[in-house]
């Protein structure tokens, strides 16, 4: 993760709880699964989200190229840089900031089409995830359609790494404890989440 906020795409569609961003294939090295993004709205409000899905659609040209014996490098490069179908990035909203105050509730209204989306800086990640008592986790845990364990592990790995150097060194322990509290009545889900967290490797 870079230290500055980088533009990764624009909004394709959204609801009150999530949105889909379109970005060029050439920009795909920026967003990561489990990474935090922010969508600035008007009047000092910005929405925070977590990338839960990155989807690359095919088109007619791709279908034709796939069947050919050999794809020349310049054709491959052209397809990456100039393709018409954007890469779709699924983002789940986990909170927002209004007048400098961070909230782990859902944003009052969704962003509009073509609104710009940026990656979060380490300071923003520390400020958001270190605020309150991990209320934003409930937005992830209520979504049964998401790969929750993997998403949480990816998020904790990235945020934990930042906290290790910029925030609370015990953040991973605290968030794990909170997950145990939230999921202790659901043995299967908790063990799956903990098993994924157990695979995290912080350096």
């Amino acid at each position, binding site marked *: 993760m870079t230290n500055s906020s980088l533009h990764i795409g624009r909004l394709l569609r959204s609801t009150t709880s999530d949105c889909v961003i379109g970005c060029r294939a050439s920009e795909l090295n920026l967003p990561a699964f489990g990474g935090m993004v922010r969508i600035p709205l008007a009047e000092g409000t910005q929405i925070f989200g977590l990338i839960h899905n990155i989807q690359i659609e095919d088109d007619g040209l791709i279908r034709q190229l796939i069947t050919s014996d050999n794809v020349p490098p310049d054709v491959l490069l052209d397809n990456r840089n100039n393709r018409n179908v954007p890469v779709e990035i699924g983002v789940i909203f986990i909170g927002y900031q209004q007048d400098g105050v961070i909230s782990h509730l859902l944003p009052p209204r969704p962003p509009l089409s073509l609104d710009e989306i940026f990656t979060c800086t380490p300071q923003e990640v520390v400020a958001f995830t270190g605020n309150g008592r991990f209320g934003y986790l409930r937005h992830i845990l209520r979504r049964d359609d998401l790969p929750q364990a993997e998403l949480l592990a990816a998020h904790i790995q990235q945020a934990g790494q930042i906290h290790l150097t910029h925030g609370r060194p015990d953040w991973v322990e605290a968030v794990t404890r909170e997950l*145990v509290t939230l999921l202790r009545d659901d043995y299967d889900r908790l063990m799956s989440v*903990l098993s994924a967290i157990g695979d995290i490797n912080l350096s």
Partner: protein
Amino acid sequence: MTNNPENTSEKSLGYVVGGSLKDSLSVRLTVPPQEVKEGSFVVIESGDWRFYGTVTDLQLGSTNPRFADEQSENRLPPEVARLLHGQTLFTNLQVLPALMQEVGPDPASPEYEQWRSQHPDDSGLQPQPVKTVPAHHALVRSARAEDVANIFGEPSQRNFVIGYTREQNLPIPLDLEKFVQRSSGIFGATGTGKSFLTRLLLAGLIEYNKAATLVFDMHNEYAYDDIASDTKEVIPGLKSKFNPRVRVVGLGAGASIRGQSPDFNLTLAESDILPEDIEMLTRELNLRETTPATLEALWHDFGRTWFSEFKKMRNGAMEEDPITGKKVPATDSVAFWANQAGVNVMAAEGLHQKLGRLFNKPYIVPNPPQDSLAEIINLLASGKHVILSFGDHETDLDYLLVTNLITRRIRDEWEKRTNAYRSHPQKNPEPRPLVVVIEEAHKLLNREMAAQTAFATIAREMRKYYVTLLIVDQRPSQIYDEVMSQLGTRVSAWLGDEADIAAVLSGLAGRDALRGMLARLQPKEEALLLGWGVSLPIVVRSRRYDQRFFEELRGASPPGRSADDAIRELFG
């Protein structure tokens, strides 16, 4: 509210999660279970109120049985497994609340001033029996020295230290003033230190010296120095330590107790024995149901000399009738008297034969040189303590007859003195409280005997006449329920039998919770204190009855556990 075990205050053991006043409170433990033991004295801080209770059980639990069933530490990294177990696996304490006390807000807080103005003095702020429950999540902590002092009192002559708490070695005193106001009991299976507990308490009572004690020492243990059967150490005798305050009386003329001469000997006059003394021995002498009628006739014919007269009669003596020449009962025979008195001859002869065991007792004499019974009563009334050693007369028959006879006399005497005092308090002194110590109490206070002996009456109502019992027994289940339920303070060492445990706890609140504690006491040197005389049930390591104990008792050094004690506890 989320309670993270790791976040709770360092001093707390856990927090209240449930329970009821009727049963006990459940407390989620936030420290390793090894830090708390059954029988511990704990304090629950709930707002302006403080609750005092005893740990009666520890239970392992889990939020979901699968967390307990599966060894997740094998599947997860250690730090993740630790976090998981910290919240899903837990230990619950069962705490039996006994007392509650209003302590008000923190003196440093702004609310304190207002609270203090509503409670200008401390009169309503004493610990009282628990009548409500603490709030959810109220913090629980181990009792500190000041809590023990608050509940049990500061150690003093009156507040006699009987032992120490198991965890922190805090001294637990027993209020001797309260102890002697009602009958009490010391129980425990054989070899659990019952006699040592009795010696401790007697030493405390004699030192405090506000009540006289009369010890029926069936096995000649208490008066003179003895050798412990297990450690081979010398056990100081009460006479040795408290001479001249303690007088030893030997049963029978010329009796010697462990090779030593007692202060004086007890001989009973034949006229002291009443028909009811014999009736009480029905089981011991295997008497028939005709006995009361025969005794009634004897009493009717001879009055107080009935025993002597009956003893003089010859059993089966016959003589020739000078007129008819037939064999007829001799005029000094039992049969002759029976025919005269209209009593069944066989019954009278049978009784005479069975009373032969009593007729031959050397301590029952026609005309004793002195009224030893009156002497004992005078000693007790004048502030002495009396140990009646049975010497060689250690049979149940001796014990039953002598204890009952003496106790009956004492009861009559104290009743008389109390009535005199109540009628004319200016003219008559207040009777000195008396504690009668009886060993093997079940022999005198079992269901059959209780109604006939003086002891049951004392246990039930003699409190108002300044006489109480200290019952020492290993089979409390054999003691009549009505007597057991009247006992104030109960000190119990380990008991194994379910019926005995139930008997010791009879009439007490929370007995179901206390039952396990009794069964799991250490077999030696541990005792559970409970009942009316103890503010709340508590397990103590009993004080050692040795030279150091007497030094502490005399004020040479404060009560405490020596290095030797600690080493003995560690290594046995």
